């Protein structure tokens, strides 16, 4: 079930990346291409049958997992900046691109690298599940989740506001609602992990579900964009 979902999400991400290709050539919103390309990398590397060969190529030290984390950080930083600007939330923009946001990002990145170097992670293991009992690996996982949850939590109210206001067309409100839902699920993932419950597959379900929601939201924005009035 989870593995089917993973492949579906990978397909969606690749599709979105391909859909941004023409825009890259014309120079229109190139950032979106990178967001989807990096998301595709992160999703692909979370699938064991892709993770093992890639990590083997990188020496079998689970460097591939670091790549996943750093791709996710980039995706969330780029996406959050764009979404905050799109939905005109100066506060969200400040919390992402301002000093605080950059500090959180830098601290998370350094934290990931340090905890990874301090851990004994010889031998490929997707999601580092085999090393979960090491405190440094646990810290590594936490830091990885917290930046994404931080960025997502900032975006939930910014997008929900548009989803709930009557002044917008239905397609724009649905797009905002999908994005908001996706970011909300990211936050829920962190909360669920905090709870001492055996929630392994549920967390995965939520993470991939959140990607689907965000992709749906972006598609709806694009749908609204191509139907925009000819002028302007």
């Amino acid at each position, binding site marked *: 079930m989870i593995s089917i979902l993973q492949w579906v999400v990978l397909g969606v991400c690749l599709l979105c990346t391909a859909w941004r290709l023409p825009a890259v050539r014309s120079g229109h*919103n190139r950032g979106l291409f990178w967001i989807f390309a990096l998301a595709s990398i992160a999703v692909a590397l979370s699938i064991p049958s892709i993770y093992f060969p890639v990590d083997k190529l990188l020496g079998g030290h689970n460097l591939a997992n670091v790549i996943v984390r750093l791709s996710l950080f980039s995706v969330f930083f780029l996406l959050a900046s764009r979404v905050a600007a799109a939905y005109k939330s100066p506060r969200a923009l400040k919390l992402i691109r301002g000093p605080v946001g950059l500090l959180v990002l830098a601290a998370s990145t350094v934290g990931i690298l340090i905890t990874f170097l301090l851990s004994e992670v010889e031998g490929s293991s997707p999601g580092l599940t085999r090393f979960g009992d090491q405190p440094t690996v646990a810290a590594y996982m936490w830091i990885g989740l917290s930046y994404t949850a931080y960025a997502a939590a900032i975006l939930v109210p910014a997008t929900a506001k548009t989803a709930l206001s009557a002044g917008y067309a239905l397609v724009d409100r649905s797009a905002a609602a999908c994005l908001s839902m996706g970011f909300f699920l990211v936050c829920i993932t962190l909360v669920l992990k905090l709870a001492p419950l055996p929630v392994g597959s549920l967390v995965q379900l939520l993470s991939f579900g959140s990607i689907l929601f965000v992709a749906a939201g972006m598609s709806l924005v694009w749908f609204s964009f191509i139907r925009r009035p000819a002028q302007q």
Partner: protein
Amino acid sequence: MTVPAKLFQQWLRTVAGDTSQAAVCRSAGIKRSTLAQQLVRGRVSVATVAAVSRALNLPVVASLSTFPLFTDLATGIKAPTQAELLSQISDYDLLQEILNRQTQVEGALAPKPALLTSVPHRSSVRAWLDAVDVGELRQRVARDADMAPQNFSAQISANRLSAELAVATARIANVGLTNGLVATGFLSPTEAGWAPDARELALRQTANSALASLAAQRLEILGRLMRRNEDDRAAVQSIWENLG
């Protein structure tokens, strides 16, 4: 706004006789499936009653009066007040009249008074409510209809008002019961019992000062409406620019 399907069918039998439902729908310009659905649900919309009525050349107000909710509609017809008549003249027609009068003052040949655009205009519901307001009208209507005030104002902002609310408002404001239905566009002024040239006459009789104040009030509302539209458009534009 609906009437019970059973009563509608009774009424249809008396006014249309043996004419088939399909034929009635065709001449009224209603989809057969729409009417069928309304009959199944047991509630037929008043718009259907009006459409059928027009198709059969029956006075719409008299037809509506046969249904319990609207029994006093026909007897409640009263000539619209001066303010009501002016409220149903569009902003641009008001401004045009001001310009025409100015042209006349300057000695130039007065342009032929143009025909007024037909009702309803862009904010006809709000204008009508303002014209008949006797103080706290909106609150009283919302309270009587057991409706949240913000839902009522949402209807007004969208230039809509259900037939039931339009009649209820007229009743509370003590004006002709059909007058609100003109503001919502549900009835034509003639159908509501207004004299053919009533609006034109009211406009010509309005003093310059009153006309100027009214126009100022209308422009204020128009400006607010435009600002809101522009803000909404700018917001969508920003989404497209960043995520499109």
